[in-house]
């Protein structure tokens, strides 16, 4: 045990004396939450739109007022010819144009029918989608107001409720994603690098000649990162609750427990990488390309897994973050308990045993 503490203490010295490591370990979660929370957001707020009002009557005026009144849109300019549409999109500031044809009010009154055209800049399809959806919603809203005035024979009204995230906040989506990313970076990348560093400097050789059990050496390396990850989990949760207003709806104990399980999986992966990588660069490369990239792309955090083609969906099954992401969403956002996430928990536990077993098998007690 004394031996073990000698290792752990030494590992903490390494971490605390290296400012860059310290920064990556403790500031990264804060920076990521802030970047994702305030800079990178899919939400539409004050988007600039252009309007080509060809009828300029009571109805169009009131519709435009309604568009302007919403916090989603800001009417940037009015246009008068079809040619202008192209040129404003090319400038790039305006992402949506609303075109109201002539005789709008008349058509509405006499034929009970009028048309509105929405033209969106779909070079960013997600933004185009969101903008047209919001604009249609406002137009439907406007229509409902008039139909209230004149009784129509039948109407179907849809009433929508957004469960779990009534305000459609992006934070509900990325907080679980950031947690997966941070834990993976801290545990996998840092553990792999510190072990490989000792191989490079030759200190690993000296330790292997000593009576210290190689397994103990490696576990002692993982302990500080495990503790730091626990600190990071708490930091992220505090930030999301108090800064981003994302509540923890489910059991906090379950959430932290699952996070620690994912931390262990990441540590095991780090050990596995360290047994394979010969240099710090290789370890870094494998961690970033082999792990971080799939975590961002295939965990469901950026792109929904259900929409992926079958090969990618299959690959996503072996990405640990996919299961962890799904657990955090269920527990933290939906507030459901272990009964709903036992399958994911079991898969992560299986991965832990598999990666750890493989890492131990590969770890060479003797150098050759």
């Amino acid at each position, binding site marked *: 045990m004394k031996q073990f503490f000698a290792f752990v203490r030494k590992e903490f010295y390494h971490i605390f004396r290296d400012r860059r490591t310290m920064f990556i370990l403790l500031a990264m979660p804060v920076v990521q939450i802030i970047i994702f929370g305030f800079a990178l957001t899919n939400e539409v707020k004050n988007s600039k739109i252009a309007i080509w009002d060809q009828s300029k009557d009571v109805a169009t005026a009131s519709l435009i007022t309604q568009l302007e009144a919403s916090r989603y849109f800001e009417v940037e300019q009015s246009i008068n010819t079809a040619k202008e549409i192209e040129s404003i999109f090319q400038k790039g500031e305006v992402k949506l144009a609303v075109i109201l044809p002539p005789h709008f009010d008349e058509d509405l009154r006499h034929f009970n029918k009028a048309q509105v055209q929405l033209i969106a800049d779909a070079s960013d399809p997600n933004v185009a989608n969101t903008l047209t959806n919001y604009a249609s919603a406002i137009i439907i809203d406007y229509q409902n107001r008039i139909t209230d005035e004149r009784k129509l024979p039948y109407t179907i009204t849809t009433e929508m409720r957004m469960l779990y995230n009534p305000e459609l906040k992006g934070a509900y989506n990325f907080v679980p994603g950031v947690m997966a990313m941070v834990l993976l970076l801290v545990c996998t990348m840092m553990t792999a690098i510190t072990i490989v560093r000792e191989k490079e*400097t030759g200190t690993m050789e000296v330790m292997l000649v000593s009576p210290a059990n190689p397994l103990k050496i490696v576990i002692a390396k993982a302990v500080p990162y495990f503790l730091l990850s626990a600190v990071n989990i708490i930091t992220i949760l505090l930030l999301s609750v108090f800064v981003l207003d994302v509540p923890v709806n489910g059991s906090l104990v379950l959430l932290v427990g699952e996070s620690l399980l994912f931390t262990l999986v990441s540590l095991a992966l780090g050990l596995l990488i360290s047994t394979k990588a010969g240099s710090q660069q290789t370890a870094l490369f494998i961690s970033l390309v082999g792990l971080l990239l799939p975590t961002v792309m295939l965990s469901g955090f950026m792109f929904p897994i259900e929409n992926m083609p079958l090969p990618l969906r299959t690959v996503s099954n072996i990405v640990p973050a996919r299961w962890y992401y799904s657990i955090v969403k269920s527990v933290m956002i939906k507030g459901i308990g272990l009964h709903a996430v036992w399958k994911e928990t079991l898969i992560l536990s299986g991965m832990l045993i598999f990666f750890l077993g493989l890492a131990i098998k590969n770890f060479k007690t003797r150098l050759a």
Partner: protein
Amino acid sequence: MVNEKVILVENLTKKFEDFTAVDHISFDVHKGEIFGFLGANGAGKTTAMRMLSGLSMPTSGKAMVAGFDVYRENEKIKRNIGYMSQKFSLYEDLTVRENIRFYAGIYGKSSHFIKEKTELVLDELHLTAEGDKLVKSLPLGWKQKLAFSVAIFHEPRIVFLDEPTGGVDPVTRREFWHMIYEAAASGITVFVTTHYMDEAEYCDRVSIMVDGRIDALDTPQQLKKTFAAISMDEVFLKLARKATRAGD
């Protein structure tokens, strides 16, 4: 027990696929002896030393280190040896005292033992004032001497030194060898590989490896006589010329 054999090697062989790095070597080392292990780059010195220190499993042959078998009693050997690798092996971001404490700690020494001996060692090295400085701030020669003190801190029966004086200035090398003599006098057997032929003269006995085999083994005086050479340098050149393996 004057001629107690602490290392006993018979036909020790290590093959990497179809390459025989160490080819049936046999020798023994006595207690308190300074045993020089010479050879050109790629002759198999490091591989042989790794087998003896339990880092590498022999392909065939017999080897006993400190009375333990290298195949089965690996762990017991580790307890009884010290090792200083070719690469500088102290932690640069730890202080002198922290390095000593760490390495002594992994050998399971008590805090009391560590505390007392640390001051003793620092005093001998004239490093007491630098005890709380980071190792990276020390000159290379001091680091090297410190690394040796750390390798024998836990009082092993045998210490393996793999080219310990690489890149060190002549004055520090002399001081280093002084430390080796002191260690040997206190009963620690020293097994040392080196490139420097003048250092070979300091050894009690010297073996010279060529292409994985030991081609000569004797005291420096006797070797010079046998090969009709005036220096170890000449002995070495005469033997090394026969080598067919390219150095690395």
